[in-house]
């Protein structure tokens, strides 16, 4: 029992900023927090104010004056962080306006993703994922955050099931009556045709 408890304690993540004892740089100046904590202590003096996400985040480096050589990528899914602050050369994301390549020094952008292939280029190797949808934020300091709902490596996809799904949703679209059904069938067709082109192309 004690062993299990100590194992649980050991697995505790070290994300909390206060876990770093001798950091010379303070967490991103919590000025919004300061107004919040002040307002809180005025109205409710008995309780400690609740913490906010800002105190749990590691601060991001500021925009450098020259373009850095590598792009730092955070690729997160609800179930895992696929890539966490990984330095790569280039990332190609399936934005709604088409395939978008992101290199270090890209202008700050917010883009929505559509179902498609995401490829990460590091030196000579390239990893491809099929992404269902999500968002990508490119910051001025050559940090790229890609948040996707689902992402699978391409070799995990089954061609036959993709074809079957595409046929199924096409038939659903033709037999759909309400707008909701039509929209759902259209989404299914979009995703499956993207899957198809990802596997063949």
């Amino acid at each position, binding site marked *: 029992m004690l062993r299990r408890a100590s194992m649980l304690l050991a697995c505790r993540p070290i994300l909390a900023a206060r876990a770093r004892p001798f950091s010379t740089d303070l967490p991103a100046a919590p000025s919004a927090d300061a107004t919040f904590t002040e307002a809180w202590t005025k109205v409710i003096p008995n*309780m400690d104010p609740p913490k906010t996400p800002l105190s749990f985040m590691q601060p991001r480096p500021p925009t450098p004056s020259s373009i850095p050589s590598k792009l730092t990528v955070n690729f997160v899914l609800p179930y895992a962080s696929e890539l966490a602050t990984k330095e790569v050369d280039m990332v190609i994301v399936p934005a709604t306006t088409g395939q978008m390549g992101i290199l270090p020094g890209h202008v700050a952008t917010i883009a929505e993703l559509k179902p498609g292939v995401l490829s990460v280029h590091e030196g000579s190797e390239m990893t491809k994922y099929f992404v269902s949808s999500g968002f990508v934020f490119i910051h001025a300091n050559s940090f790229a955050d890609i948040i996707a709902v689902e992402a699978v490596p391409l070799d995990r996809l089954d061609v036959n099931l993709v074809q079957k799904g595409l046929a199924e949703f096409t038939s659903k679209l033709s037999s759909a009556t309400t707008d909701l059904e039509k929209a759902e069938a259209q989404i299914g067709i979009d995703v499956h045709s993207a899957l198809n082109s990802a596997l063949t192309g």
Partner: protein
Amino acid sequence: MALAALRREGRRFAPMISPHPITALRSSPLAPSLEDEGPIGVRYISTQVVRNRMKSVKNIQKITKAMKMVAASKLRAIQTKAENSRGLWQPFTALLGDLPSADVKKNVVVTISSDKGLCGGINSTSVKISKGLHKLNSGPEKETKYVILGEKAKAQLIRDSKKDIELIITELQKNPLNYTQVSVLADEILKNVEYDALRIVFNKFHSVVSFVPTVSTVLSPEIVEREAESGGKLGDLDSYEVEGGETKGEILQNLAEFQFSCVMFNAVLENACSEQGARMSAMDSSSRNAGDMLDRLTLTYNRTRQASITTELIEIISGASALEG
């Protein structure tokens, strides 16, 4: 009552027998009489009551130990999920910052709590923080509404804030938590509730013994635009180019909804972890208390038993010496 009557009868039948020692009884916390009448007026103190009590305390200890084991195994299962989902809200905070002190007209406080009890004080903490936020954001034109997840917060908030509650959702953990379920839930909330700012109150899981109450703020796209124009924290949001979509507003709308569902997912997982952790420590202290109680009862039991043996011996010996002398 019956034993007291029997005792009075005994005194009438056997006036010769010396009054029974009451030293053993003084230390026991049990008020009802432990004496019993045996044949020919021999009195012995019964240990039945203490023994019953010991049996029930031991059963309680076994149950609380088992509950602690169950909570530990559930915690292990859900902790990995929660830790993996921690990366999900960080990009949003990096982009949009965190503005818990944003001044808005329509506040919605989403309180996340558990359905089952016996988990220590985490639900009360969440409710207290929610009420604090309500107070903080009350003003002439401002209003605060509640959306409640979980039975425990519902029971506490329905008593005094019934008219402010918009939506109540329970039985969240019937099926294992997954993103699809939470995003459907987020969709429901966004559809039915008008909001300028959503404040999600939950307990963040730090370790098995430490849970920190946290509030995450999600602002509606209009407020985000307003804050971006006025400068300050979100000032450089305008420098971001927005790809795709017809207007920037459309993308920001999608962004706000996505942010809400991601933050909710993480919050629900963290709260579930905190619940299991709190239940573990509550059941652990309960088993320890039961153990202490059992030790005290064992001492009482032994004292009672020895006192009854001593009484019997005294009676026999005094009876024998009365016959001789």
